[in-house]
């Protein structure tokens, strides 16, 4: 089928098999390998991207479901320099190996948009769908809280 959607602000059209997953389309079709495949079972969140502005796990969305919609990946998060949430991850050591990081940051940006004033307990609860195996959660939570403030322009 011919699939047309907007990825990181650019309209793209490709012929795809209907069974193509969104994450496969992004990585193999468009070469946007910043979106990672971790568990492939909707658990780990390494493949998190924004679909129509909402965080979704792109290993469990068909590329076809995103047809006509806007998708943002880690590559398109910021046009120029680092996004405030990316900078917050650096400043708070919110990563070690980096595998989960693109998904973490996409999830965090969406969470920050929805509720910039979340408490730490809420931040921890809302990150339940993104798994880090380097045990970097303290840094990640700190980055989320601070990144949310930076995005809201409070810092």
């Amino acid at each position: 089928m011919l699939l047309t959607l907007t990825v990181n602000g650019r309209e793209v059209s490709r012929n795809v098999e209907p069974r193509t997953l969104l994450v496969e389309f992004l990585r193999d079709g468009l070469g946007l390998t910043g979106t990672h495949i971790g568990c492939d079972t909707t658990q780990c969140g390494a493949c998190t991207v924004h679909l129509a502005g909402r965080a979704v796990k792109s290993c469990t969305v068909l590329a076809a479901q995103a047809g006509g919609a806007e998708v943002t990946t880690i590559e398109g998060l910021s046009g120029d320099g680092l996004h405030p949430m990316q900078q917050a991850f650096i400043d708070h050591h919110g990563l070690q190996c980096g595998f989960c990081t693109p998904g973490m940051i996409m999830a965090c940006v969406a969470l920050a948009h929805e509720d910039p004033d979340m408490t730490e307990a809420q931040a921890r609860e809302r990150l339940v769908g993104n798994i880090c195996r380097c045990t970097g959660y303290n840094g990640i939570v700190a980055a989320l809280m601070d990144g949310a403030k930076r995005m809201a322009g409070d810092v």
Partner: protein
Amino acid sequence: MYSFEYARPNTLNEALDILCSDVEPRLLAGGQTLLAAMKHRLTAHSTLIDLQAIDALRGVSVDGAILRIGAMVRHAEVAAHIEIRGRLPALAVLAEGIADPSVRNMGTMGGSVANNDPAADYPAAVLALGATIHTNLRDIPADDYFLGMFATALARDEILTAISFPLPDAAGYFKLPHPASGYVLAGAFVARFGDTTRVAINGAGPCVFRDAAAEGALSARFHPDAAAGLHFDPEDFTEDLHAGKDYRAQVLPHVIRRALTRALA
């Protein structure tokens, strides 16, 4: 995944045309359950009929004492909806407790209720509130809808369009979640209408069910202490790698007590 055709009809009638004429069609709502099964090649379909563009399946409205929610309304929408939070907060809390934010952004109420996973959350609310399940063909009372493990009264050519929830005087939901998956090990939704109480139990058995003894006790006294005297027969319950049936039977009165505490909060 086995290959399939993809269709995105704009109306219910177009969707039904494909559903009734295709060899092995399957409705696609949020895909958060179906796509996982298809990846494992547990199911194969000729065409997936994506319901996302059908306006008639969307929307939330309150009419008098009835809250109506469209089948394609996502868990995240129910969790955040101002009117649901105000009029039936137990349902918003239930939706907020499903999976994680990203899954809640895709997963739909209709998909969950059509799937009827014994460990799913929504079926408990639908049954305890005595909701009505609307389809393209008819209106099904919740008491006639849940037939068994992953089994419902829906026919092959039937699309769940919306669910109408009668607004109770008080309601509360509590689930003991599996620590890793978040799915229900044992859960209870209690709903008070006048001086009667309906109690639906999920997670513990092969299908959500109402419990007459609990309903009797909680109708007589709508108070957390009323759950203390309840006993459940483990033989009715599920024994699996997540929990034994004795454990489920023993924990259930405590789950009901907490659901009541929430209803009265």
